[in-house]
């Protein structure tokens, strides 16, 4: 390996900014990688929830609108900085949160990705066991042994695939993107075979208020798209600029998740079950079920590869993980997933999903803060040295933390939970007049803007372009020579 190649490999598996020559992915490559990352079991779960409240037509509309609008917010929040300097989402949050305050989005990212990937790899184990039973290679009695073994196998496979950094994500995506077409085929099957049932189906838990039902469908789409914030930076930094990343991000994560979530909507409306590996057996017989199980298994693996790569890059920002080898870092991330998958998969399933629901509400305020900071306050001016060099005072604020961002996060999360409890879906005004994620983002933006204008900028912190008032104040306070 030449010195240049070694440097490239180091950058690819570190949080360091990538140079133009290292950002070699094109739009199509990013589209494929993001589509593969987006298509996983969670699509059916999102679809299932939407199908509880909306019929198929409304579910399609709410999911498409919600996913695409949510993706726009995520793209506007993270992409500009990530694509300009070839950095991940955590680095993009440093101007707003500070040289130490970035641990807030980093914790959000780590817990979210790790939690979701635990679920995906446990799902992988379960669907592999079902697949092996369906093709006659094992019996249901042995599922208890096969499931943890398959989860462990998936962990090892993910680790092996990621040994070469983003190259592993790219290779896996190019193979597994085929499963998206299988997903669309499954959607075609249920729409084609059961159209009459689908058209007549009534959502089981629809509220008496049609506005509430529709806005809840929208909200589910928006919230799902906002939770792509961690993925978008780590993957998009591989393309050379924002122009090449924006549309693939919108289509790859927003469009594909919206389309594949319809499988869950259709399944829960017609057959009362969202998992296609269960309903395809009913609709098309055991062969369809086997194809579907292979699809579900592959889908979860592709997403887990991308997720664990993003998580590893995020951890690189911590001093303690900065210099350890990439292999050790992967082991550190994958080991807890393997332990949970082997030891307490059901306990995790039953309890941790509630925690993930609460973690998810943090991404709306985070995006609101970043958009306000980048477009309104900084006007696109970012100091790249400040993202990595702690001796650079520009983003140091007060002891490394920007109180405006902390207060805005608290206000955003609190307003979300007040208007819509993410677990029980109990709601308060102004919901459903405004989706909870949008409200949380707007509240966080407002608080951030206010505190920054009133406290941070007058204190000369944060490297913001100075307003005329601040200049005048500084001129008056300058002692005469």
């Amino acid at each position: 390996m030449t010195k240049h190649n070694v440097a490239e490999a180091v950058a690819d598996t570190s949080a360091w900014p990538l140079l133009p020559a290292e950002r070699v992915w094109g739009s199509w490559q990013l589209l494929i990688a993001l589509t593969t990352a987006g298509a996983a079991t969670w699509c059916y779960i999102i679809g299932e929830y939407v199908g509880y409240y909306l019929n198929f037509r409304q579910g399609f509309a709410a999911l498409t609108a919600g996913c695409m609008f949510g993706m726009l917010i995520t793209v506007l929040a993270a992409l500009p900085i990530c694509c300009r300097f070839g950095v991940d989402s955590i680095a993009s949050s440093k101007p707003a949160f500070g040289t130490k305050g970035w641990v807030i989005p980093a914790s959000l990212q780590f817990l979210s990705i790790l939690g979701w990937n635990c679920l995906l790899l446990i799902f992988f184990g379960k669907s592999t066991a079902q697949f092996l039973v369906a093709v006659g290679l094992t019996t249901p009695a042995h599922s208890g042994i096969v499931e943890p073994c398959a989860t462990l196998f998936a962990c090892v496979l993910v680790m092996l695939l990621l040994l070469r950094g983003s190259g592993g994500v790219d290779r896996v995506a190019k193979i597994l993107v085929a499963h998206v077409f299988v997903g669309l085929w499954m959607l075609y099957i249920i729409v084609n075979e059961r159209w009459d049932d689908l058209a007549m189906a009534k959502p089981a838990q629809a509220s008496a208020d049609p506005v509430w039902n529709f806005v809840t469908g929208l909200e589910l789409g928006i919230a799902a798209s906002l939770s792509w914030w961690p993925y978008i930076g780590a993957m998009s930094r591989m393309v050379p600029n924002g122009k090449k990343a924006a549309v693939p991000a919108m289509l790859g994560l927003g469009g594909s998740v919206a389309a594949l979530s319809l499988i869950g909507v259709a399944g829960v409306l017609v057959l009362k079950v969202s998992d296609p590996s269960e309903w395809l057996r009913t609709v098309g017989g055991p062969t369809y079920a086997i194809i579907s199980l292979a699809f579900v298994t592959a889908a979860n693996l592709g997403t887990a590869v991308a997720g664990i790569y993003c998580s590893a890059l995020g951890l690189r920002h911590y001093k303690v993980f900065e210099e350890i080898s990439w292999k050790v870092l992967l082991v550190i991330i994958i080991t807890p997933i393997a332990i949970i998958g082997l030891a307490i998969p059901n306990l995790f399933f039953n309890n941790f999903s509630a925690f993930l629901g609460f973690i998810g509400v943090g991404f709306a305020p985070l995006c609101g803060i970043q958009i306000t900071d980048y477009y309104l306050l900084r006007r696109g001016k970012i100091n790249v040295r400040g993202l990595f060099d702690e001796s650079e005072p520009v983003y140091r604020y007060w002891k490394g933390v920007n109180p405006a961002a902390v207060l805005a996060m608290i206000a955003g999360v609190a307003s979300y939970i007040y208007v819509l409890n993410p677990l029980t879906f109990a709601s308060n005004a102004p919901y459903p007049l405004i989706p909870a994620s949008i409200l949380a983002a707007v509240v966080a933006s407002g608080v951030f803007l206010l505190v920054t204008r009133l406290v941070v900028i007058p204190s000369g912190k944060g490297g913001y372009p100075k307003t005329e008032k601040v200049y005048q104040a500084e001129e008056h306070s300058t002692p005469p020579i």
Partner: protein
Amino acid sequence: MRALPLELEQRIALLEEEQNQGADFDTATWFWLIILGIIIPVAVAVWGWA
């Protein structure tokens, strides 16, 4: 405070020059973002609600 690794220092120095930074969204990208992120969602939501 710790000095930056030499490799990172060199990368930052290069990226401080504007020609080494990735370009921001251009007009065409904004056009597509508005179409995909606002016009289509609004149109589909109105259709679904009607």
